[in-house]
Each structure stands twice: as structure tokens, then as C-alpha cells.
């Protein structure tokens, strides 16, 4: 089963909407409660003061995601560097997908973006697993300058989903700024699924695509991580890594 990492700035009151909880219900979820500290503050000092409060909140969240059935756990990290923590936890838990929690009601339709150099097959297979036999519709979306090739890609991608009995639609945006088109398309959907792209100069300036989509569309965004990162085996003792995951 695919594991989904849900990073939450718990001490800043970040939480998950009921819609996202329901959407992720069949998956294995690791809630990553994190707190970013200014360099003046040793992480240990913050843990002394806030550790208990954060743990309480995380236990509740993990329960909502199904901790009692063993399909959810949580990690709590105090850090100076958010990205470093995300990458480490994602690698350690082998999470193939991470979620940017947004605000949404019940999720009826997903927008799945296949634009650019992303692992289309992995994204599609994840969506199939996520939707399962639930009444959730899927729109495959692609922004491209090459319309015929794009249409072919969308149709090929739709086949395995349709075969599972999922209501699949396609949407092609030609000759438009991909991100803008995606955000426009997201209006009629409750959540977005997209692939992670290698960081470029643009992402350094404007932030990651997924975060921009999340900010503009308000709803949750699920990001399928780059596969080579997931396969990377952190050279650590597995006992150290999982010290916290068996709780709750």
C-alpha cells in the first residue's frame, strides 16, 4: 500500500479537512508534525515546552487517519530546516506521495495533472489505488504545445482507470502557461494530484509548483514524489528510524 506523508505545522494550528481525511482513508498515512524554529532557539528547548501539546494534537490526527486500525502513525520533528526534515522523513518512511493539506469539503472529483516530465504511470496507478471502488471522479489534465501527442497520452493514461470502473474525463490545455491552466481547471475539482518535478531555477524563485497550485487553488494537493528519491535507501539503522512510528 502506498504511504502518504502529511506534513502539518501542528503548533501553528495547521490541520486537515474532513474531505482530505476521507480521501486518504484507504491509504497508509504518516502525519509529520513539524515545528520550524528560528536559529536562536535550540530544537530541544522548543520540545521541552511544546512537545506534549504537539503530541496530543498528533495523536488525535493519527486516530482520524486510522491509527487504531494500524493504517496511520505520526512523527514529531523540531527543526530549523523544513525541507531537510521533509526529505528525511519521506525517505525514511518511504512515502511515495506527500499531501499539502488544503481546505475542502467531501471530495467528489480529482484533477490529475500529467503535465511535463513526470512519471505518468506511477501517478495513474496511485490514483487508481486511491480511488478504488469509491464514487470519486477523475479528470486527467495535460498542458502541452503538441496537441495530438498530448491527446494520445491522456487517452492511454485513462485506460487503466476506466478499466477499474472509475469515471474518467480528460482535459487538454494547448498553448497556455501550464500552471495557470492547471489552477483554472482546479476550480471544478475538490483536490489535485500532481507529480514532483526536478527543482529548476523557476522553482527556486517562485517556490515549488505544487505549493503554488495549493496556494492558488486552496484545496488539497497530493504530490507523487520522484521515484529515484523514494528508492534511495537511507544508510541508517532501521531501529533508529522507526523509533517513533510504532506509537499511538
Amino acid at each position, binding site marked *: 500500500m502506498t504511504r502518504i506523508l502529511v506534513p502539518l505545522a501542528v503548533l501553528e494550528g495547521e490541520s486537515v479537512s474532513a474531505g482530505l481525511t476521507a480521501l486518504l482513508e484507504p491509504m497508509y498515512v504518516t502525519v509529520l508534525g513539524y515545528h520550524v524554529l528560528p536559529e*536562536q532557539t535550540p530544537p*530541544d*528547548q522548543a*520540545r521541552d*515546552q511544546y512537545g506534549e501539546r504537539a503530541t496530543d494534537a498528533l495523536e488525535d490526527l493519527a486516530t482520524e487517519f486510522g491509527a487504531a486500525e494500524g493504517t496511520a502513525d505520526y512523527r514529531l520533528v523540531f527543526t530549523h530546516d523544513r525541507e531537510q526534515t521533509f526529505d528525511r522523513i519521506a525517505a525514511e518512511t518511504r512515502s511515495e506521495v506527500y499531501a499539502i493539506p488544503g481546505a475542502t469539503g467531501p471530495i467528489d472529483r480529482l484533477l490529475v495533472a500529467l503535465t511535463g516530465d513526470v512519471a505518468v504511470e506511477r501517478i495513474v496507478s496511485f490514483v487508481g489505488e486511491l480511488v478504488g471502488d469509491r464514487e470519486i471522479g477523475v479528470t486527467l489534465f495535460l498542458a502541452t504545445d503538441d496537441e495530438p501527442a498530448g491527446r494520445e497520452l491522456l487517452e492511454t493514461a485513462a485506460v487503466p482507470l476506466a478499466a477499474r470502473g472509475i469515471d474518467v474525463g480528460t482535459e487538454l490545455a494547448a498553448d497556455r502557461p501550464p500552471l495557470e491552466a492547471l489552477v483554472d481547471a482546479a476550480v471544478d475539482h475538490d483536490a489535485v494530484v500532481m507529480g514532483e518535478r526536478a527543482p529548476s531555477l523557476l522553482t527556486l524563485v517562485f517556490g515549488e509548483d505544487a505549493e503554488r497550485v495549493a496556494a492558488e487553488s486552496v484545496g488539497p494537493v497530493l504530490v507523487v514524489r520522484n521515484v529515484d528519491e523514494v528508492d534511495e535507501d537511507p544508510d541508517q539503522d532501521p531501529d533508529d528510524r522507526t523509533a517513533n512510528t510504532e506509537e499511538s
Partner: protein
Amino acid sequence: MDEPSHEGTNIEGESPRVEQTVETEEVTITDDAELERTLGLSGGLAIGIGTMIGAGIFVFPGLAAGQAGPAAAASFAIGAVVALLVALPASELATAMPKSGGGYYFISRGLGTLAGAVVGLSLWFGLVFATAFYLVGFGYYAVDTLAELGVAVGEGLVIPLALLFGAAFTVLNVTGTENAAKLQNGIVALLLSILVVFLGYGGLDAAGLVGEPTAPEQFAPFGAVPVMTTAALVFTSYLGFAQVATVAGEMKDPGRNLPLAMVGSVLIVGVLYVATIFVATSAFGSEQLAGFGETAMVEVGRHYLGAVGAFAIVFGGLLATMSSANASVLSTSRAIYAVSKDALLPRGASRINLRYGTPHVALGMAGGPILVLTATGRVELLAEVASFLHLIMYGLICVALIALRRDEPEWYDPDFRVPGYPIVPAIGAVASFALIGFMQPTSQLVGVGIMIATAGWYFYYARDVDLKGAL
């Protein structure tokens, strides 16, 4: 693994908060959370070098040359050797106990609560004295900067400017949430480039000028004793490596990076200091240098590179003293946290405020005394007391290492072991304590007074707290 045992409570009924942790290269795992290690080798070096360089290069050359002549270079070399002799044992202890608090932590675990309390609280004051010293140095550079820009304000403004910026640093550290660590790395890189260009050029020039007008000066015109007293004075230029240990808990791959950052920063600044004195005393006679005072290096810069050189040094001095002051404000607050966590100070001292997530109480306990001391404006006294209190800690770090090694507890498992044990730590301890003997009597009195006061506090407040590891 058996962590040291801890029990007992202070006068308010608080006991040390110590729990089992698992340390990996990237993270410290406690029973309920993970603490990310985010500081790399360059970050560690930047803390060490950034703290040290301001004093040794930009404030001391004039003062030191006045006291010891060209042999001031030897004084700096002696300081480097002593610092190195302590940095090696400190590295071993830091890799065995990569925790916030640095020297205090090693000594309280290795030698017990009384020694720990004296060192921990003295370290707080030592850092306060050091920061005040950096701030006064900064004040001189600020006035010189204004002078270079054509605004002659006179030395009367040195202290007010130092106070203003001291207060500003404290406030910024309480309210600032953006990451200044990257900035610090950049500043240190910039400073090193300025210095390498300047020292390279000055060194070539000085070598080419052999036999030129500057009357060939005797190497140690005042004899050997001033070389030693000067070494004691300028030792403040080597305090930064122990600051690296105060952030040991946040260092990535501590087994590798801590020794490299501590030993590396001492070696780098040691070489720079000796080269600086050589270049400075080649440009001017030592008496003339002494006459230029705290900002003598500006005149040296002017001598070699004209107005550009003077400006580069003024600008560098401003940055360097600022980064020294800022880095030690941060270390002070971590030192206070370490003792308060162990119930040697009221727990309230380590409170974090909700609004900014910063330890405002500890920062205030650093900033307040710093301003009072800055107001005295006594550069040499501030520097020597800072060195005194640090040297006590350094000596005891070596003693703690020997005590731990003689009967290694089960939990003692350092990644780095000091070469030449037991000679190196033994000489390190003797040398640290000996250097104190060469300080001015006033500094020694103030230092001893502070230590007696901290011991008194221990007996009043935390007599029952037991921190000693299972030896």
C-alpha cells in the same frame, strides 16, 4: 545504553530534565519527538571563525604590538597552541556527548554538579564579557567608518554606538525569525576573502621591503614575560571554538563535523592572526601601531593599499565585530538554556515566547549584563575576564576528559579520540590554568569573584542536584 544518572531537586523543587535519546547523524530522537540536525561543517566553521576573527584581527593587533613588540605574533601562536590543546579534548567530549551546552555539559557529567554549576554559570558571564568586548570593538570601528566617510565624531561616540547596537542585536534576536545563519556564512566567507587578499599583498610587500626604512625592530623588545601576558590578553581571540560545542546538538554528523569545525577554525584563525601581526608590524613600528589603538589595522590597510585598503579593513572590522557579537549573544542564550534545563537556574530562564518562538528570557539575561559591561568600555579588562572564565572551563574540559577516560562509563563512546592521550589533555589543562597566571591582577580578581559567586549560587540554589555521570 546507560545515560548518566540524575536526580535531586533545586530549591524550587525542579529537577534536571534528562531523558534517553538516540543520536544519529541527522537527528536526535527523544521519547516523543525528533530534533533535526541542520548545521553542516561550513555552518560550524562559520560560527567558530565568525566569533573569533573580529577580536584577533581587527581589535588586538595594535594593543598586542604595543605590549610585546613584533613578538606579539608569538603571543598569538601561543594562544593558538593552547586553544588547539583544548580543542582536541573538547572535540572528543563533544562527539561523545553531542548536546547543547558544550563545555558545561561535559564538565557537569564528568566532574559533577559543583564544577558543572561553576563552569556553566561562569560560561554565561564569560560570554557576556566577551560579547561586551566585541561590542566595544565594534564601536571603535563604527566611529572609524564614520570618519572614513568624512563624519568625524570623535571617540566619545564609541560606547553609545556599541550600546545602541548591543541593544539592537538583543531585540533582533528576540523578534527576528528569518534565518541569519546563511548571512553569517556569507559574512565569514567575505571576511576571509578580504583578509587573504590583504595579507597576501601585505606579506609580499613586507617581504620585498626587507632592509627598507622601518628601523629593523628587535623581535621581543620587552623580553619574554610581556609575550606571555600578551598571550593571556589576546586569548579572547580563540574563544569561538567552544561556541561550536554549544550547538553540538544541532550539528549534522557530529562525529565528523564537530572535531573538524573546532580544530579547523582554530587552525585557520591562528594562521591568520600570526600573519596579520607579521604584516602589521612590518608596516609600522610597534609603538606607532600601539598609538593607533583598537583600529590600528585600518592604518595598516591604508599603508599597503591606500584608501581602498583602509576602507576594506574598516568595512571588514565592522562586519567581523558585529558577527562576533551576534554569534556570542546566541551562544549565551544556549549556555543559559543548558544550565536552566539542569535545574541550576530557574526553569523560566528557558521559556520560549509564543509570538516569535525565541528564548526571550535567556536572550534578555544575555543582553542586559552585556549592555552594563559595554558601558564600562574597558577593552582589556573585558577581554581578559572573558578569557579567564573560558580558560577555567577549558582546563576543566581537559580534566573531565582524563577523569572519564580513566574509568570509562558504559555510555562513553566518542567517535573521535584525542591523539596523544594523556599527554595532550594534561598539557592542555596545565597550559589553560597557567595562562590565567599571566593576566592583570584586576582581571584575575573579577574572574575569581564571579566563580565564588557562582559556587555560592550552587550551594544556595541547587545543592541537591546531582548531574555526575556514572563514572
